[in-house]
């Protein structure tokens, strides 16, 4: 109720705009907010609220020609305002014209961030502190320092200190400036670089700087250097992380492909589309959770989606093997073409059935990220995919080398005819391996929903890269696939900054071709007596 009245009043005062506000105050005040005394009464009941007359006066001051009067009005409004005033002001701003929006902006920004500094959510506190720092009004320093005293979160503290130093850097006092610059260097603040560089420029000989300016510039120079050294480290670290992240995606995708290729000599061109099916299985699981289960369970849909997409896609793989691949054994190139045909049909079917773009909401426990050092932020979803790929490798290793089924698979891989003679049902092994490899594709598709949209062409984005991984890694060795995906993923991200994504890819193709000059069968090859190596 109070807020509503406040809005009505402010609107009456401010909507007139500019200097007219005061003149128009009488008649409009009476028509828009009838019993003024009532409003005054209710406002004065609030502990932090300003008296009505003062709000009116200050609002008019905001449009004053004199900057100091303006400044004073902002200061008073912000220092004494509260959430209700903020809501009122925002309401006025959204309805007002350009002049009103401009005049209210500093008040709202400062007031909002000051209130947010006390928020329960650490991200909100942090962004409020950062905003105050960029806004650069000295008035914010005491609030920030007060917030700092009670803050326990390391990264929020860091941002608050950075903001305080940033504001102080703009002060007129050289000693404050020097200490702020030194502090910013210590904090490795990337945000301060441009301001610091400006200070250095002021001390260029052509500008005939004073001694004080020279001293400031010296500190600033040291700080910039420190920040830049740190930034290059952080950058390197982030590049490595991005490389590992891409590698892990490639790895999950290539594992299934490599197992199938190793066992049957078949490149499954529909692998990308099996991933796409996995992604849609995740999407459907999410929709089912939304529709049939209580809202509290929604966050755990992803845990259910992983086995679901694995099983669904494994079943698809089984069907694909039984209807197409089975008839093409020993003819890898034909298989390649036929599976490509299958992939075209699957893409179009998904497009017709699901439409072009659907997205999966990442569960809340995977959104956000961990800050590990200044300037380096690792998103949880990428970390999750990395962990998942490691789990997959461990699982496959266990399955292949520690179980009876794995023994049979390896036997067929090494010598199909001999295994068959020894009583291993090779066709069955093929079918199960194909289903398992497809299931891995489904899992990869499920993981990909965390970092991108679900669309029919989803599989196409990475598929050629993962073919390259398989070809580079060689047949039948898990290690080859792991090393090749780390190599290709890492190189991709390493080359991207200097060559751009496109030329980086071209360069990788060239490197792979050159690499195959030395090792035509990939990194690791099966040792055997085949002349056809």
């Amino acid at each position, binding site marked *: 109720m109070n807020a509503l009245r406040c809005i009505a009043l402010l609107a009456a005062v401010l909507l007139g705009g500019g200097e007219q506000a005061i003149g128009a105050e009488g008649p409009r005040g009476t028509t828009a907010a009838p019993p003024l005394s009532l409003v005054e009464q209710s406002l004065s009941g609030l502990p932090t609220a300003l008296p009505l007359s003062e709000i009116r006066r200050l609002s008019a001051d905001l449009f004053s020609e004199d900057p100091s009067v303006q400044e004073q009005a902002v200061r008073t409004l912000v220092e004494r305002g509260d959430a209700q005033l903020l809501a009122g002001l925002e309401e006025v701003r959204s309805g007002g014209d350009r002049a009103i929006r401009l005049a209210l902006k500093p008040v709202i920004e400062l007031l909002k961030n000051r209130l947010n500094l006390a928020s329960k959510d650490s991200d909100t506190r942090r962004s409020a502190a950062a905003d105050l720092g960029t806004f650069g009004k000295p008035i914010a320093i005491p609030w920030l320092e007060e917030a700092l005293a009670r803050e326990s979160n390391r990264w929020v503290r860091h941002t608050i200190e950075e903001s305080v130093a940033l504001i102080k850097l703009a002060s007129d006092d050289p000693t404050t400036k020097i200490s702020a610059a030194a502090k910013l260097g210590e904090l490795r603040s990337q945000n301060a670089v441009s301001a610091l560089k400006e200070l250095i420029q002021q001390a260029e000989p052509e500008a005939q700087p004073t001694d004080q300016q020279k001293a400031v510039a010296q500190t600033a120079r040291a700080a910039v250097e420190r920040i830049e050294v740190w930034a290059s480290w952080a950058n390197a670290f982030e590049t490595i992380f991005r490389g590992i992240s891409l590698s892990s995606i490639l790895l999950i995708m290539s594992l299934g492909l490599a197992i199938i290729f190793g066992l049957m000599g078949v490149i499954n061109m529909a692998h990308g589309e099996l991933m796409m099916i996995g992604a849609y299985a995740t999407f459907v699981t999410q929709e089912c959770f939304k529709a049939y289960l209580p809202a509290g369970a929604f966050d755990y849909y992803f845990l259910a989606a992983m086995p679901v997409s694995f099983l669904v896609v494994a079943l698809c793989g089984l069907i694909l093997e039984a209807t197409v691949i089975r008839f093409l054994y*020993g003819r890898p190139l034909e298989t390649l*073409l036929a599976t490509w045909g299958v992939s075209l049909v699957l893409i179009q079917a998904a497009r017709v059935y699901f439409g072009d773009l659907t997205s999966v909401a990442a569960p809340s426990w995977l959104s956000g990220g961990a800050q590990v050092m200044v300037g380096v932020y690792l998103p949880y979803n990428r970390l999750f995919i990395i962990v998942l790929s490691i789990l997959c490798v461990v699982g496959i290793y266990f399955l292949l080398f520690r179980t009876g089924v794995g023994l049979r698979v390896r036997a067929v891989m090494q010598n199909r005819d001999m295994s068959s003679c020894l009583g291993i049902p090779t066709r069955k092994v093929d079918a199960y391996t194909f289903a398992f490899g497809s299931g891995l594709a489904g899992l990869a598709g499920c993981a990909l929903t965390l970092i991108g949209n679900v669309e029919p062409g989803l599989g196409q984005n990475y598929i050629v890269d993962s073919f390259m991984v398989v070809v580079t890694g060689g047949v039948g060795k898990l290690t080859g696939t792991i090393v090749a995906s780390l190599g290709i993923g890492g190189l991709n991200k390493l080359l991207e900054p200097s060559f751009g994504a496109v030329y980086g890819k071209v360069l990788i193709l060239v490197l792979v071709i050159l690499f195959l000059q030395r090792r035509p069968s990939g990194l690791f090859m099966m040792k055997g007596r085949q002349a056809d190596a």
Partner: protein
Amino acid sequence: MSDTGAIEPRIRNGEGLIFWLTGFTLLVVLPLLNVLPTPDSLLHVSDFALNRFGKFLCFAILALGLDLIWGYTGILSLGHGVFFGLGAYAIGMHLMLNIGTESVYGSALPDFMVWNQVKELPFFWKPFYSFGVALAGAILVPTLFALVFGFLAFRSRIKGVYFAIITQALALCAWLVFNRNETNLGGTNGLTDFKQVLGFRLSEPGTQRALYILTVLCLGGAYLLCRWIIRSRTGRVLVAIRDSEQRVLFSGYSPANYKLFVFVVSAALAGLAGALYVPQVGIITPAQIGVLPSLEMVIWVAVGGRGTLLGAALGAVGVNWARSVLTNYFPELWPFFLGGLFVTVVLLFPDGLVGLFARVREKWVASGLWVRKSPTTSESNGRV
């Protein structure tokens, strides 16, 4: 020996007749039907139809080259779109420069350079002012590129699936590079809006007719060239490489050289096809040279019947005709049709239309004595 080797003699007796009959129809009858009857006559072939047919025949030239390498030598290349594109862009650049100041912006530079604020013609565009250079480039650039790429690939004995994947990556890379604006090749929009070639207006039906006839002649030439290669000693080695590369190697031949030769020839044919394609269709974009178009080219050959030149040409025309009809009436169904075609042809008709025809005829001739043979198992053991 593989099945295609067995089929060939069966169709060879009729081949000369078919060649001359088809040649006569394409070269004389169709253009005459385009010129002579009145437009409302039943026999009339419209300018549009003739032009569209010319486009299919360009693809047939490419299919011949692809058949040479895949059907006869057993090397699956998924990157022929790149060679096609190189030929097409070479001529396209010449036609682009020929527009001169007729362009939308009235600048001597191609329109897309004006958009991209390129002030001066890039150096590699300058030679293409000359028609001769452009024509030579359309053949030589893909040839040289194939020579380098093939040398690296075959020298290290990359083959089978490995070669297919590498060429597919090549197609992807080429698509990415041609899509970029800073390579000054027109970006996503490609090269288009051509006006004239050697002083003839491209919008004139007469010019298009001449281009059509030129395409037919080139197709005939390409056919004869491929046939000559296949019937020569080299051709026998190529087929031997397909059937057992090691045996060829151990017999003292160098498969790498033969493979390189056939790869280069097929790249040159693809370049020629691209060069003829651009003035008739009037546009070349990166979308026509990427991964999917390159794969589609393979399916033309598969549908027609690989290992037979006639089949490859027939497949290219047939599939593209089906495409233009189907995408016209049922645009959503085309991917289903194409994918289904991939699967059906590979599974059920590994010798394509020509193989089917030969088999039906054989069955007809030998009716009574005919013994059922499964097309997918017993006949295709030698296939790689």
